[in-house]
């Protein structure tokens, strides 16, 4: 059981593992990003994603990005208990599968981060140039 999970591990980046359920045990490795999806069997347009080892950092940013998407009817996140390192993100869409909308939101946020990174690099260059023009000591 565990061997099947280990083969998907990638080095040097947050890894993903398949969560196997024993009847009552819930086995999870720390520092892996894991997702569980509920409510999909009946209606794929609404799901709750339960992420392990995530908190407000990720959830609030992704909630904001989901709200920007016109396909989202409702989205929100909750942290069931502060001692458990787990966050539930609820998405209800206007018809598209919630999984796809969630993935697109992650993609959008990634693009925004990349843009912020590039803009920041450019701003550093601009700042250094303007400083060297004003005063010769940096």
């Amino acid at each position, binding site marked *: 059981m565990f061997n099947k999970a280990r083969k*998907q591990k990638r*080095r*040097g*980046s*947050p890894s*993903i*593992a398949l*969560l196997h*359920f024993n009847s009552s045990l819930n086995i999870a490795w720390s*520092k892996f*990003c*894991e*997702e*569980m*999806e*509920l*409510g*999909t*069997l009946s209606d794929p347009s609404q799901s*709750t*994603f*339960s992420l392990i080892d*995530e*908190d*407000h*950092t*990720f959830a*609030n*940013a*992704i*909630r*904001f*990005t989901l709200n*920007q*998407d*016109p*396909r989202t009817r409702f989205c929100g996140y909750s942290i*069931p208990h502060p001692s458990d390192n787990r966050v*539930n993100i*609820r998405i209800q869409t206007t018809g598209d599968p919630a*999984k796809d909308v969630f*993935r697109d939101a*992650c*993609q*959008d*946020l*990634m693009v*925004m*981060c*990349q*843009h*912020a*990174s590039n*803009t*920041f*690099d450019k*701003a*550093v260059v601009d*700042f*250094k140039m303007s400083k060297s023009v004003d005063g010769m000591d940096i």
Partner: protein
Amino acid sequence: MEGKSYQRFPRVKIREMRHDYLKFELRDTDASVANALRRVMIAEVPTVAIDLVEIEINSSVLNDEFIAHRLGLIPLTSDRAMSMRFSRDCDACDGDGQCVHCSVEFHLRARCHSDQTLDVTSKELLSSDHTVVPVDFSDASGYEASEQRGIIIVKLRRGQELRLRAIARKGIGKDHAKWSPAATVTFMYEPDIRINEEMMETLSLEEKTAWVDSSPTKVFEIDPNTGKVVVVDPEAYTYDDEVIKKAEAVGKPGLVDITAKEDSFIFTVESTGAIKASQLLLNAIEILKQKLDAVRLSEDTVEADDQFGELGAHMRGG
């Protein structure tokens, strides 16, 4: 494809930049993204810090674990940290965590021979990798020779000795604060201050002075030439509403209108010296992208309706 997402892209402008201090403006983005950046900078950007200490000789006044704790808190230059592996993930050393790829070794040997107290400082910590060394806090101008010694670890008397070997590993602030590269990271909403000029004209000079002085921080000033009240430093405003209360107290409500621009933030980043402040921000954005990548590419979302029992009940409002 239905309507495009309404997302906007952020703009950045740098105000001030030093080696360990950075002040910049972030516009056209939401508070949740700004907060995510702040939280990642404090808790999830990896650095290198001493994690394992083997003490051979310790006859100082501090006990072993006290010294080990202090050693862990010493900031080490961590430019290598982003490319290093976590020692638990390292396959070269079977997770032992002591090989060259995933750790850095340090030595410290000090013995006091003279009658004068010997200060054992972070400068005496010798590293096996010249890119990972205790941060040097000495001033660039360096005229105060006494301030260039480094962080004092312990003080020794004649005859006392300290010998130890330490291993530094990669970690994140979430695990232990010694790995946090940020001293403080703050952001504030940029204030939008509008003075009602007609109402301001009805005030005498003393009333204007009294009103300007009622603000705990220097936000306004009276222009000596024209006698008008001008905004000299809008960002010194700390949203304390003192000037608004003062305006109401003298019977002139609406004298000034101060709102916070909801999508404009002023970030102040101070690093401990482990990572350059500008590099800290770039690493934070990189870590945020890695998290998003991990979630986006996660193909193993487990359909867990039946097996989730109490979680399902919680989500359905139980």
